[in-house]
């Protein structure tokens, strides 16, 4: 469960990215976050896994006030959250396989478990034959799928996907969204920032619309509609 209470965020350079956002994403929900470029979608996502702290207001994840977390507790928060970063953030000196395996090693998974689950997850995103490639040797869409594999490999309680289909063709995009919906059906809360109008319109899930840092619409079975 993710709760935002009157959250505002200004970046150190003075940019006000979010203004008084209040919203609750219940456990097990699938929600889209949409809005024009620079609306604050990525900022909202960053607040959840505490890459950044709100300037005012509170963010709770599974009942925990994220801002109040001791630094030493932050890694443990993040282990329950899978993130597909908008810019992928793959480790450049690790292969696709190693990148996914790294996320499992972080949570202390056994080598056996890793050897079993990493290939299965790469299969799921259609990257089995790219396991040995370094990020620089992957196409844009392949990198994006590797980032997705890393985000889901630990079966996180919460999955944050920031523009996870921006570099994918419509068919692959649709497959990936099906995958996310499937993961959501198994109980994971999913928050997906996206520009893919076709997908949002087809999925008929909750849509939170941001504009210039304000929450301007929040519909249960919404569509993209500008």
């Amino acid at each position, binding site marked *: 469960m993710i709760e935002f209470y009157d959250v505002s965020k200004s970046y150190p350079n003075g940019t006000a990215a979010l203004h008084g956002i209040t919203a609750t994403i219940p456990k097990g929900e699938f929600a889209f976050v949409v809005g024009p470029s620079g609306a604050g979608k990525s900022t909202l996502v960053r607040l959840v896994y505490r890459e950044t702290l709100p300037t005012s207001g509170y963010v709770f994840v599974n009942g925990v006030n994220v801002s109040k977390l001791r630094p030493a507790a932050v890694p443990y928060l993040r282990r329950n959250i899978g993130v597909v970063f908008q810019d992928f*953030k793959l480790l450049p000196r690790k292969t696709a396989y190693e990148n996914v395996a790294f996320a499992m090693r972080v949570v202390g998974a056994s080598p056996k478990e890793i050897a079993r689950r990493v290939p299965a997850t790469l299969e799921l995103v259609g990257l089995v034959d790219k396991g040995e490639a370094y990020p620089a040797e992957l196409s844009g869409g392949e990198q994006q799928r590797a980032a997705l594999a890393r985000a889901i490999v630990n079966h996180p309680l919460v999955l944050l996907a920031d523009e996870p289909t921006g570099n994918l063709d419509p068919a692959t995009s649709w497959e990936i969204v099906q995958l996310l919906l499937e993961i959501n059906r198994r109980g994971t809360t999913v928050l997906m920032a996206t520009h893919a109008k076709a997908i949002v319109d087809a999925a008929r899930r909750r849509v939170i619309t941001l504009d210039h840092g304000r929450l301007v619409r929040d519909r249960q079975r919404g569509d993209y509609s500008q």
Partner: protein
Amino acid sequence: MGVRMILGEALVSVRRNALMSLASTTTVAVSLFILAVFLLAAVNVDHMVKTIEGELEVRLYLSAGLDEAALEDLRALVEALEGVTEVIYVSKEEALATLRQQLGPRADLLEGIDEMNPLRDSFRVFTQGPAWIEHVAAAAAGLGGVEDVGYQRELIQRLLPLTSAIHFGGLVLVGLMVIATLFVISNTVRLTILARSEEISIMKLVGATDWFIRWPLLLEGMLLGLLGAAIAAIGAWQAYAWAVNGVYRAVSFIPVVPVLPLAWRLGLLLCGLGAVIGGLGSVLSLRRFLRT
């Protein structure tokens, strides 16, 4: 994470950062080599100073006509004085012979003196160091049978500040060198860590704890340090062996410290320093990126 896993991680990382690893290892090697050369020089200067100091003596001129037993008693008393290491008896005949030799071409001055040798029997007294000489001289002056006490007052007064200056200067220099070397090494490691700030921040975002990030980088720093140190140690060993050889051939009277136990000790010291500073440099540079 098991130790083998961390070690594997570190080794892979060294290889995949080949260029950076090469640059930092060679820097470590070169700066530790210089430190080693410097330490070897310092050890040898120290050795030389000790040798020179060991040749300083107090001369006790004895009353004429002491018999064998009195002589032995006196020698025992002198040997018992604090700071005394050795006592050698010199008869007045030996003393005259030595003087004649020292005068060299002007020995003709002593012509005709032989029969009426004006010199006295004496003890040459060696001490634990130049600092003891005045003390021993004063104590010996009070002993029965000692008529007069002589020592190279002027030489000692010149030598003592000189050797202590060499000691002090050497210590300051060695200290400077050690600090500088450690600084350069840890700074080099810091540069390789800075270059990876992006990777480190990604690891944190994926949920890695500080120690999960730190261990492999700590080990990597230690590996780079150790490798560089090993190269430096081998280089220093070879260079020193060559230099000692050269000194023996060219200026054999200069006392040098023999290669072997020294080279081993130095090698161990360097490897220890390299590993510790490499690891420490790694961990300290990481502070900036962790805990934020």
